């Protein structure tokens, strides 16, 4: 029972790191800078939220399969296989959690009073320094929300993961796929245990996030 839990945590953690980096980068570039094709970029980023996981999984399978444009290249050049590996599960989890990260980071950046960036500019700061010292720290509560929600989404990812990574015990079997196959094979005891673990974990994650955000707001208003 431990193997799918550890693998889920590993996949979700790595996927969250990538969705954090990509989400923050795109949220800043699209909403704070004048990059061309803003709407197209944004639509692509939100798309995984509305597409059925099976569609997403199928698209990933086409892209990362042995004969796919990315998968074929990786296999021929670096002998790296993505399909039916935990790396595939990381890619699926990252893509499904990216919209949550992007939306949270976007809200945090957009709601930030532009006066702080302007003030930093008049004080001689470069754009990178403004981001590092002013924008990012002030947007941090929103970004934290994005990280937690992305992690929760990544750990619960099922459809796309199943299609691209399969359900190989010890190698690609995550908690959600383990639950699905435990139920299918009639092993309700294992399913119950995993469901309980998953529910408690998700509850605690959201509970702690809300408590932290409330505390932060409270301190802000107090001072």
């Amino acid at each position, binding site marked *: 029972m431990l193997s799918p839990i550890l693998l889920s945590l590993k996949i979700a953690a790595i996927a969250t790191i990538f969705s954090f980096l990509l989400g923050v980068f795109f949220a800043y570039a699209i909403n704070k800078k004048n990059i061309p094709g803003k709407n197209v970029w944004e639509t692509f980023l939100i798309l995984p939220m509305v597409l059925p996981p099976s569609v997403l999984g199928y698209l990933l399978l086409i892209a990362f399969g042995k004969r796919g444009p990315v998968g074929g290249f990786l296999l021929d050049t670096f002998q790296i296989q993505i399909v039916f590996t935990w790396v595939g599960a990381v890619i699926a989890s990252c893509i499904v959690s990216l919209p949550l990260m992007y939306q949270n980071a976007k809200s945090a950046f957009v709601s930030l*009073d532009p*006066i*702080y960036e*302007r*003030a*930093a*500019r*008049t*004080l*001689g*700061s*470069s754009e990178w*320094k403004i981001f590092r*010292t*002013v924008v990012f*720290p*002030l947007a941090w509560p929103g970004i934290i929300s994005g990280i937690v929600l992305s992690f929760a989404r990544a750990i619960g990812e099922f459809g796309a993961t199943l299609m691209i990574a399969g359900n190989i015990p010890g190698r690609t079997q995550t908690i959600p796929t383990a639950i699905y196959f435990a139920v299918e094979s009639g092993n309700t005891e294992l399913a119950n245990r995993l469901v309980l673990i998953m529910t408690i974990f998700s509850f605690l994650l959201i509970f702690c996030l809300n408590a932290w955000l409330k505390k932060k707001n409270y301190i*802000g208003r107090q*001072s």
Partner: protein
Amino acid sequence: MDFRIIKRLDHFTIDVNYSFYSGILAVQGESGAGKTTLLNCIAGLALPDAGRISVGEKVVFDHNQDIDVPTRLRALGYLFQNYGLFPNMTVHQNIVYGIKNKEEYKDKKKREELLQYADYIMDTFGIAHLKAKHPTQISGGEKQRAALSRAIVTKPKLLLLDEPFSALDSRTKEIIYQEFAAFKKEFQIPTILITHDTEESKLFADRRILMKDGKIVEEH
């Protein structure tokens, strides 16, 4: 400094041509007269449609010659209407923020001098005891002093003040007026003061212009 600024806005066009080299220039006018946009054009925070701006000897904007020096290199101090103190930093961190961007800050000896100067400015404005406080923990008058300290600590060639007293209550305003008069005498930085208060501009300014719908309609 000289500025010739043309900037089209929704309801009118800012078209201003003026030169001044020392003291305080008050730009008066009602809300929506284009005063803050004028200041933002000078600071490089808004892009004029045409014109030429020079700060000291340096041309920072020239539409014809395609010159547009970024804000960070214009050597300006800007005091915003709501101060714009970074809430994630202490008062001291706010004040030394601009100093740390200076080239000289990399030199150990000069760094000490710059930091000592920051301490001197904080002492002068009576906010040295607030060093470790965050902007949300200090009063309006203290925020104003901190923001002014932050704007002048980098020794700017031009100081831009956008309605610096408007957010203060009348009692605090009186105290700050006295301090500002002392500040003007001691630091003598060429300053543009945006205000809608005639008393205020008479009190501090060496020259005054009145703006209406983006144009200068009176000069004193």
